[in-house]
């Protein structure tokens, strides 16, 4: 925390020194004050809530889509190989490039945000589920079969414990992507409400640099909060995989 204070103090010094125009770069203390004020601002909160809603619903839909598709693609070698070629081709298309098209086909609003979030945030889950299924321990499975352990128990005790950590990683990678897409759609004119719309208005409409910085900082806090919550949840919910990343790094 000392580091944060230091950086903020440094920023305050620079902005107060007169090296930068306060009309473009507001004082750090001003931005902090605005952030506190914004937390009680009804209009700002409703815009933010709109973004958060799209973020969470979109992420949830992506998890479902990723898991279902992951199962379909991962369970069959032929399907896996064929889709791999197709995905190699589709994946490099930057998701934001689809926003203009989406605006024409779907129109402005929540549905557009959700559609693009699902498109962009499903990939990490899909990859991870597929690679988890492909890398299941054959011996473990065959041992279970030899001992006549039923389908149900195999799923519960072998399949889930070895795939869930991969899914959790996928969700952690997907979460910031979903937030980025929500705000991108808002900023590029795909929605009339949301944090992105609010920041853009503060900039081009009101010309208030302090509000732009404060709104952006809050967007950053939301993203960081999401990362942190997911990391904590993963540690709590998946304790049986204590070193789940560090042992697979070659």
């Amino acid at each position, binding site marked *: *925390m000392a*580091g944060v204070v*230091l*950086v903020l103090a440094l920023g305050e010094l620079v902005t107060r020194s007169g090296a930068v125009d306060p009309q*473009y*770069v507001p004082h750090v203390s001003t931005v902090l004050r605005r952030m506190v004020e914004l937390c009680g601002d009804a209009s700002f909160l409703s815009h933010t809530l709109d973004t958060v809603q799209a973020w969470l619903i979109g992420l949830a839909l992506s998890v479902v889509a990723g898991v279902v598709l992951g199962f379909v693609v991962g369970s069959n070698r032929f399907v896996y*190989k*064929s*889709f*791999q*070629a*197709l995905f*190699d*081709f*589709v*994946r*490099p*298309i*930057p998701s*934001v*490039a*689809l926003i*203009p*098209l989406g605006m*024409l*086909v779907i129109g402005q609003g929540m549905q557009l945000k959700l559609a693009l979030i699902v498109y962009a945030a499903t990939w*990490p889950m899909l*990859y*991870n589920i597929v*690679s988890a299924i492909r890398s299941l321990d054959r011996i473990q499975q065959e041992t279970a079969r030899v001992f006549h352990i039923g389908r149900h128990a195999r799923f519960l005790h072998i399949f889930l414990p070895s795939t869930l950590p991969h899914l959790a990683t*996928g969700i*952690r*990678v997907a979460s*910031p992507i979903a*937030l980025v897409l929500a*705000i991108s759609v808002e*900023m*590029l004119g795909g929605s009339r409400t949301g*944090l*992105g719309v609010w*920041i853009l208005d*503060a*900039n081009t409409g009101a010309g208030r640099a302090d509000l*732009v*910085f404060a*709104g*952006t*900082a809050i*967007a*950053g806090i939301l*993203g*960081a909060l999401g*990362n*942190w919550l997911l*990391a904590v949840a993963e540690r709590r919910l998946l304790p049986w995989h204590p070193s789940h*990343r*560090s042992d*697979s*790094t*070659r």
Partner: protein
Amino acid sequence: MTGTGSARVETLASMRLASSGWHFSRAFVTHVWVLIVAAIAWELIARSANLFYFPPLTTVLEHARQMWFSGPASSGWLTQAFMADVASSLLRVVLGLLVAVVLGVLAGTAIGLLPRLGDLVDPTLQFARSVPPVALVPIFMLLFGIGSEMRITLIAFTSVWPILLNTITGVRSVEPLYHATARLFRIGIRKRLVYIVLPASAPLILAGLRVSTALALIVMVLSEMVAATSGIGYRLMFEQQSCTLANMWACIELLGTSGYLLNAIVVLLEKRLLRWLPTPRE
């Protein structure tokens, strides 16, 4: 310290994601028929159903040819529009990535070698990289205007994080014995950096570069969609406003192809630079 830990986990996670064998696969070659089937299906469905939003593939390709590749032979058949849209965009990506690599590796090495500095800046780094890049567009416009500099800086700022975090992890994972041996033989810090630290962290740095390249392309399009006068992103918005669907699809396909090629270049670079590794990486 917890921040550093979770950053490490995420870096490794993104690395594993990138190296899970999906990026540049042999399947692409052996299963190219899937692409052909998909292309034919697109063509047939679009032709028979006459969908407004999904023009046939051949129409899209023809529009792309007219827009970008129908210039005079003296300029390699590239048109002026190609220079304005594609060349300027790619230049921005390459410059932005270059800045990101230089800054990321330098800062990452410093932070990796000095744990106390790492502890000090870690929370700030974690926060800075959590800000959605698109939300930074207004701020970068305030700071750098609406020229190319703003876009290059934004690309650099966004794509520096995977390289920086991976460099930190890489530098920290150098076998302590190497440092001790080097110290014993009185090998200077500069030589130690070049011959021990850098080679040891190269695989991680390059894995970070691959993640960064994909990010850079996204931010490029994004930054060009706002207040730009050139670039693929600008062209995409322009065609959207004029509702020319075939040109829009041409832009989308061009972006996909660019992304594919950029990734291929990074993978080649990675293979070439890491030839000395004892166990060949996939």
